């Protein structure tokens, strides 16, 4: 925090050259960001604790931090926490793998062949823009209230998001590269493998990132509707029992889960598209 104020002071002494700051200039180093972040979050928890203990907000609305962690520890001891987290994670992974296996080849197919693109792309976009959530009751009707329904809603949420990006990605292949490959006598298959596919890889990564965050929505919705286990179920159950410490605790766990998954997918995206720059 002190470093930031110091930086302020030095720039404001020379107002003429005071730079208009943008993030590209990286005013703060990575290390500073981490330190400030940790302090910041610590302050947040302290403020929460103080507010919960010393103000007259009822405990139902705002349980104290210590209560939340005690509840988490209790659940961990009872084995509720880890088993449900494992179930949610497992269902999520299954759904995501199925989505990627469906969406990437389909996106390449639809985006890569002009005629198919003309005919099917409007439908893909329509499905992408409509909230698939409305299909949830229908899925329950067709599949039943079980784990399959949860996987189906994850797949339905993730597939269009991934597919749209892959579809658009195939179309951005550099024409000069295509021409070059063609003039060296590349066959259609070879063209696809050696030119189209490598230049689409970053888009596939972006698509997967989109699918990952949409899939999380699907996961939570699936658990709201169908589950008898999983994080979402525990959260809703705790809410119905007015056990707000447990609701907050599980929400925190879910938050960490989401941050980890989304962070990983962004890392993947950055790694894969490093050569583009």
């Amino acid at each position, binding site marked *: 925090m002190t470093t930031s104020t110091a930086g302020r002071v030095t720039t404001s002494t020379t107002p003429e050259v005071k730079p208009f700051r943008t*993030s590209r200039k990286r005013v703060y180093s990575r290390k500073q960001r981490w330190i400030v972040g940790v302090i910041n979050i610590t302050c947040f928890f302290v403020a929460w604790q103080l507010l919960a203990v010393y103000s007259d907000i009822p405990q139902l609305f705002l349980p104290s931090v210590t209560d939340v962690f005690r509840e988490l520890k209790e659940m961990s001891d009872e084995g509720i926490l880890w088993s449900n987290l494992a179930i949610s994670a497992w269902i999520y992974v299954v759904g995501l793998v199925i989505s990627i296996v469906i969406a990437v080849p389909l996106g390449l197919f639809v985006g890569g062949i002009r005629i198919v693109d003309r005919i099917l792309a409007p439908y893909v976009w329509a499905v992408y823009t409509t909230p698939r959530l409305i299909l949830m009751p229908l899925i329950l009707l067709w599949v039943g209230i079980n784990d399959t329904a949860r996987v189906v809603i994850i797949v339905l949420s993730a597939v269009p998001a991934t597919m749209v990006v892959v579809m658009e990605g195939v179309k951005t292949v550099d024409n000069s590269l295509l021409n070059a490959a063609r003039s060296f006598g590349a066959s259609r298959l070879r063209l696809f493998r050696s030119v189209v596919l490598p230049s689409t890889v970053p888009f596939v990564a972006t698509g997967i990132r989109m699918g990952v965050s949409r899939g999380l929505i699907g996961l939570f919705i699936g658990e709201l509707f169908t589950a008898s286990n999983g994080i979402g179920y525990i959260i809703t159950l705790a809410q119905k029992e007015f056990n707000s410490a447990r609701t907050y605790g599980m929400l925190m766990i879910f938050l960490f889960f989401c941050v980890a998954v989304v962070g990983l997918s962004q890392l993947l995206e950055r790694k894969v598209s490093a050569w583009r720059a």
Partner: protein
Amino acid sequence: MATATVTEPLLVKKGRPLWLRLVLRVLPGIVSFAAFIGLWQLLIVVFDPNPILFPGPGEVGEEFVTAWREGELWPAVSNSMRAMFIGLVISLVVGIPLGLAIGMSPTADLLTSPYLWAFFAMPRIALAPLMIVFFGFGMEVKIWLVVLSAVVPILLSCKEGVQTVDESLVNAARSFGAGRLEMFAKVITPYTLPFIASGVRNGISRGFVGLLVIELTVGSGGIGTEVMQSMRNFNTGRMFAFASTLIAIALVLISLSRRLEAYASRWREEVAV
């Protein structure tokens, strides 16, 4: 939809009368829709499924008309739309200025980024149970969930827009003596406009999801509640009728916001996805 806008100019040639141009513009959509209905009916004829599991277009149309006649359709739609509208306005009023402010100041960015990051990563609908505890089951909780879902993409998009303003533009404006206010009005705002518009588009679609979650799970009125109610009564035709009404509304809203986005970013070549 992207391709539809690309193919349009091919069909619309100059020198044709206005009515013909209008017809040609809507024709592909109508043909496509008719093909969809035809395919649906074909599926029904070929497989002859149980209407409870998979109703045909005829039954759905019938249920739609019934719901319309009995005055069930309009209150549900207006209920949902009111929540959506109020929530969206709040999100815009809160999200845009806040996003711009955070984008302008690196310190604010540094301090808020862990929270924004958390909100971005977690589906906001996970907060639905908490919101129910706070606000009960009525209109209020719907509006709150729309706001929570919509405000994050709007805010992040605005922030990102300000942060990616072209440095050379800023420098040029400064060397011509632009003050901070002028810089904001003449460089940053126009540059950020496409980002704001894309944030609004994202906000609408996310807000819709938030609204639906509450309507489907809690049953606080609106289209989602009617859908869920129909499902519980195994009246699948009615469920399809309400669901397709909702899909139609969503498509209209999204295509309007897409148009807004295209309008806001006329001067740019590509639009950020």
